[in-house]
C-alpha cells in the first residue's frame, strides 16, 4: 500500500465518521459571505441546534459557491438526501428553515434556491435548471462551497492529492511537463502563455544549472501569483479561501516537473482569510508528508513559504513580484532574461497564477486528454469570471472557454436590470477593453478577445448599461493605471498621465477635437514602448472606447453633451412644465437652493446655482426633472 493509499483511506474514514448519520449545515463564509452577514447566520444555526438537541447535525463553514447576489447562503445536507441551498437568509429565516427541515420535513421555503445536485427534490429545482448555474462548468471551483477548506481530509476525500500521487509515484518529471503541454493549459493570470512551455524552459535551465554548479542552496523556484490586484476581481481569493490545497498541490506538482525545490505563494495582504487558510493548509500538508522532505516517501523534497504582498497592483507583474520577494521596491525589469531563465535571486523560476495551478491537479488526476475536452481549439478548459456591474445576477462564475458573451450576460447574468439596455462589457480588468453590443456574440477565448482589442486578463467582467458614459469609463480606468504605474518608464508614467488629463478635460467640457488625435497618437506608443504589461495594456480602455464609441467622445467635444447623462459639466437639469405639479419637494431637497417656485406653480432650476447633484430628479414623484 503506497503512502497515498494510506492517506486516502484515512481521509475517507475521517470524512465518513464525521458525516455518519449526521447532517451537515454549511454556511458560505468566504469574504463575500462574511461581508453579507454570514457570521450571524452561523450563530443563528448554532443557536437553533443548541435549542433543538434532537437535530443531529454539524455546522461547518465552506468557501464561496459563486452565487454572490444570494448571500448569505445556508446549505443543508442530510444523509441520503441531496444538498439544498437557501439564500439570501436572515438569522430568523435560518431558524425557521432549519426547524422546518429537521423537525417537520418541510423543505420548500421562499428562500429555497436549488438542489445542489442533478435532480429536483421536494419541489425545489435542481441547480441545473437554475439559469445562473445551468450553463456553468465547475472545474476550478470543483470544491469551493463543497468542502471545508480548513480540513485536509475533506480535500483528500474529494480526490485531493491524487494528481500529485500519480505524478510522483507513476511519472517522470519530463512526463509531467509533457502532460501539461498536452493539456494545452494556458496561464490564467493574464497573458495566457502555455504553462507547459513555461515549465519546459524552466526545466531546461534548472537542469543546466545543476550540471554547472553543485553548491547552490536552491536550483529552481515555483511561485504562485496570488496578488490579484485588479479592482473588483475576486476569483483567486475565492479559490484560496474555498480550496487552498488545490493550489498547494499544483505547486508541488510543478516543482516536481521542473526540478525546483522551493516555492513561494505571494498573496496580497488584503486577503487575511486566504492567508490564514493557506497557512493552515501548508501545516496540514506538511503533517501528512505531502510537503517537506521526501514527499510521499519518494526522494522528492519541496517546501513552500507564504509571502504577503505590499498592496501594489504592479507587484502582480512577475519581475516586480520577484523584486518584492527579494525585499526591493516592486518595479518591473526588462525581459529577457525571463524568470524561467533567471528569476528569484537569479535562479530559474516559474510564476503561475492561482487558477493555473488549481487546474494542474485535475490535469494530472484525470489526464490531459480528459481535461482538454472542454474549451476551444486554442483555449482549453474553463475560466472563472467575476461578473459584476449592471447585470441581474452578479457573482463568481465558471464557464467553458468559447461561450459567447451574450450567454454569459443574459443566461447566467440574467440580463440588464431595470429594463435598461446593454451598452458594453469590459473584460480583463483595468487594462482590458470595452466591447459594444455588436460584439455580444463574440466567444470568450484568448484569441477572440485580443482581436477585439481587449484581453482575457485574470477574469474581470464588468457589464455596463446605457447610463454609463464611455469617456468617463476610460477616464476611470486610466486614473487607476496612472496611480498604480510604478513610475519607472516614460511612456507609462507620463503617457498615461497625459491621456488622463485629456480624458478629464473632455469630461469637464474643455475637450478639443485635436485631443482625439493626441489620444490616438499616444495610445499605440504607450502600448508599444512601455516596459511591462501595465503600461502596454493601459491604453486598451481608451483604444476600444475610441474605436467602438467614438461618437460619444465627439458628442462631448463638439456638442458639449454627455449622451449618457453622467458627466456633470456636460449636463443640465430642467423641470418639465407639463409634468411639474408645484409640489415643492425638489425645492426643499435642493442643497444649493437652485430651484425657485411657489406652491402649485411650475418650478424652475437656475443652471448657474445647480451643482448637478441629481437630488431633485430622485425625489420628484412626477418624473418632471429632466436631464439633458
Amino acid at each position, binding site marked *: 500500500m503506497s503512502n497515498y493509499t494510506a492517506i486516502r483511506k484515512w481521509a475517507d474514514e475521517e470524512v465518513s465518521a464525521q458525516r455518519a448519520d449526521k447532517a451537515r449545515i454549511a454556511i458560505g463564509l468566504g469574504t463575500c459571505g462574511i461581508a453579507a452577514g454570514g457570521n450571524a447566520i452561523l450563530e443563528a444555526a448554532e443557536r437553533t441546534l443548541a435549542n433543538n438537541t434532537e437535530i443531529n447535525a454539524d455546522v461547518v463553514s465552506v468557501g464561496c459557491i459563486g452565487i454572490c447576489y444570494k448571500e448569505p447562503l445556508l446549505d443543508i445536507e442530510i444523509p441520503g438526501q441531496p444538498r439544498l441551498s437557501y439564500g439570501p437568509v436572515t438569522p430568523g429565516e435560518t431558524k425557521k428553515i432549519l426547524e422546518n427541515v429537521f423537525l417537520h420535513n418541510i423543505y420548500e421555503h421562499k428562500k429555497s434556491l436549488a438542489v445542489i445536485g442533478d435532480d429536483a427534490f421536494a419541489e425545489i429545482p435542481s441547480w441545473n435548471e437554475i439559469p445562473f448555474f445551468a450553463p456553468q462548468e465547475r472545474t476550478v471551483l470543483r470544491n469551493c462551497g463543497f468542502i471545508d477548506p480548513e480540513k485536509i481530509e475533506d480535500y483528500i476525500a474529494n480526490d485531493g492529492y491524487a494528481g500529485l500521487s500519480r505524478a510522483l509515484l507513476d511519472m517522470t518529471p519530463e512526463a509531467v511537463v509533457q502532460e501539461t503541454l498536452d493539456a494545452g493549459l494556458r496561464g490564467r493570470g493574464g497573458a495566457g502563455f502555455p504553462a507547459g512551455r513555461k515549465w519546459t524552459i524552466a526545466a531546461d535551465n534548472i537542469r543546466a544549472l545543476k550540471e554547472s554548479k553543485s553548491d547552490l542552496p536552491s536550483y529552481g523556484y515555483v511561485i504562485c501569483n496570488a496578488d490579484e490586484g485588479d479592482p473588483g476581481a475576486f476569483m483567486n481569493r475565492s479559490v484560496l479561501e474555498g480550496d487552498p490545497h488545490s493550489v498547494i498541490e499544483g505547486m508541488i506538482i510543478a516543482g516536481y516537473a521542473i526540478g525546483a525545490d522551493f516555492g513561494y505563494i505571494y498573496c496580497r495582504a488584503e486577503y487575511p482569510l486566504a492567508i490564514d487558510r493557506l497557512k493552515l493548509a501548508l501545516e496540514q500538508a506538511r503533517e501528512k508528508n505531502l510537503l517537506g522532505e521526501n514527499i510521499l516517501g519518494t526522494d522528492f523534497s519541496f517546501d513552500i513559504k507564504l509571502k504577503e504582498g505590499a498592496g501594489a497592483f504592479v507587484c502582480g507583474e512577475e519581475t516586480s513580484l520577484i523584486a518584492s520577494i527579494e525585499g526591493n521596491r516592486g518595479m518591473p525589469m*526588462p525581459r529577457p532574461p525571463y524568470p524561467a531563465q533567471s528569476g528569484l535571486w537569479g535562479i530559474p523560476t516559474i510564476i503561475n497564477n492561482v487558477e493555473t495551478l488549481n487546474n494542474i491537479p485535475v490535469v494530472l488526476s484525470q489526464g490531459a486528454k480528459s481535461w482538454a475536452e472542454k474549451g476551444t481549439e486554442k483555449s482549453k478548459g474553463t475560466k472563472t469570471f467575476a461578473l459584476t456591474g449592471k447585470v441581474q445576477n452578479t457573482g463568481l462564475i465558471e464557464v467553458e472557454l468559447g461561450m459567447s458573451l451574450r450567454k454569459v450576460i443574459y443566461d447566467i447574468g440574467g440580463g440588464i436590470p431595470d429594463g435598461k439596455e446593454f451598452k458594453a462589457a469590459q473584460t480583463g480588468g483595468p487594462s482590458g477593453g470595452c466591447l459594444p453590443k455588436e460584439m455580444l456574440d463574440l466567444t470568450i477565448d484568448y484569441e477572440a478577445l485580443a482581436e477585439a482589442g481587449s484581453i482575457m486578463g485574470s477574469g474581470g467582467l464588468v457589464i455596463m448599461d446605457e447610463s454609463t458614459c464611455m469617456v468617463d469609463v476610460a477616464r476611470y480606468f486610466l486614473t487607476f493605471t496612472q496611480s498604480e504605474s510604478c513610475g519607472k518608464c516614460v511612456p507609462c508614467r507620463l503617457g498615461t498621465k497625459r491621456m488622463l488629463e485629456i480624458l478629464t478635460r473632455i469630461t469637464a467640457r474643455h475637450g478639443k477635437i485635436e485631443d482625439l488625435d493626441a489620444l490616438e497618437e499616444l495610445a499605440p506608443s504607450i502600448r508599444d514602448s512601455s516596459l511591462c504589461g501595465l503600461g502596454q495594456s493601459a491604453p486598451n480602455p481608451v483604444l476600444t472606447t475610441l474605436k467602438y464609441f467614438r461618437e460619444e467622445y465627439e458628442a462631448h467635444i463638439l456638442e458639449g453633451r454627455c449622451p449618457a447623462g453622467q458627466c456633470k459639466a456636460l449636463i443640465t437639469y430642467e423641470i418639465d412644465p407639463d409634468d411639474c405639479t408645484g409640489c415643492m419637494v425638489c425645492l426643499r431637497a435642493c442643497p444649493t437652493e437652485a430651484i425657485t417656485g411657489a406652491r402649485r406653480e411650475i418650478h424652475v432650476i437656475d443652471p448657474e446655482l445647480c451643482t448637478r447633484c441629481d437630488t431633485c430628479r430622485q425625489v420628484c414623484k412626477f418624473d418632471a426633472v429632466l436631464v439633458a
Partner: protein
Amino acid sequence: MTNLKITIDNKKIEVPEGSTVLDAARAANVYIPTLCDDPLLEPFGACRLCIVEIEGYRGLPTACSTPAADGMQIRTSSAMIATNRKTSMNLLLSDHPLDCQHCVSNMRCDLQYVAAYVGVRGKNPYQGERRTYELDESNAFYNRNLDMCILCGKCVRACDEIQGRQAISFGYRGFSTKITAPFDLPIWDSSCESCGRCVDMCPTGALYDKTELKHGLPTGETKTICPYCGVGCGLIVETRNGEIIGVRGDGESTVNEGHTCVKGRYGWEYVQHPDRVKKPLVRKYLLEGKKKSEIDRDSSDWDWAETSWDVALDITASNLAQIRDRHGADSIGFMTSAKCLNEENYLMNKLARQVIGTNNIDHCARL
C-alpha cells in the same frame, strides 16, 4: 569565451558573450540614444529611448537590456522606432522646466543632446501638469533640484551598485514618483556619504555641485591623481582662468573608474584658500636663537615667520635631538599620513626606529 556574431544595421560584428545589444552597437560605432544606461551600471530599461527592432523578437526591445545572441539581426532605425522615440522624448519634456540657459547642465546635458538627436522640433504636442519640488540644499556639497529629474534611476543605481550606500530610492507611484531619501527626508538626513557619484552620473541638471552655480563652463581640464590617500584615484580638475572650479573622478583611470570619495571629489577648496600654508613657517624666536623659556607669548616673538626648508628642518632636527637626549627616545612619537607615498612612510619608519630609536610610530589610517 566564445564570440557572438551579430548584424547591426547591415554591419557585421563580433562581440563577447554577455554583451548587450547596446554594447554591440557601441562596438560597431552605431549610435543609439540612451538616457538611463551607463556601462558601469546594471541595465534598467526606464527611458525607452534605446528601442530597436530585432528579427524574431516581439515589439521594440530596449538595446540596453537585451542580451546579444548569436546570429541576431538588429535594426536601430525605422519609422516605428522614430515615432516611439519622439513620443517618449516629447512626454519627458512635457514634464521638464526647459530653462536650459539657467541650468547648470546647459551644454553638458544628456537630455539636451538626446532631445536634439531625436529631433523634437516645433511645439510639444503634449502639455500638462509638471512636477515641482522644493530645492534640497541640505547637503554640504551638492543640491538636488528634482524639477529637472527625469527619473532615469542612475543616481539610485550608482549609490547602490557603486558606492554601496543605498541612500536613495524611488518613492511614491505614478506621476508622483520621485527619487527620495528614506522617509522623504532631506538628503543630509540620509546615509549619503557625499561621494558625488550620483551627481556625476545624473544626465540632467537635477543633481549638481553647489560650486557649479558660481561659474560658467570650465575652460580647461587637467588629469591628475588625488593627493589625499594611498588609493590614488584619478581625478579631472576643471579650471577657468587658471582657477579650480570643480573636480570629478577620471573615468579612464583604472584605479577608480571615475569614482571617488568625498575628499577627492569635494575637498579641493583649500587649494585656493587664502589661509593655505605654502612655505614652511616657524616661530619667530626660533629664527632669532632665543630660548622658549625666555619669551613672552604675547610678544611678536611668538608669531609665525616664513623661512626656507633648510632652516625649518635644521631647527626641527636639533630640537628633536635635544628632546631625545634630555628625556629619552620614547618621549618622541611619529605619526605618518595616508597622503604620503609608501617610500615616504618607509623612510619615516627608519627615522623613528633607527635614527631616534623609538617604536612610537603610527599611521593616521588607524585612527
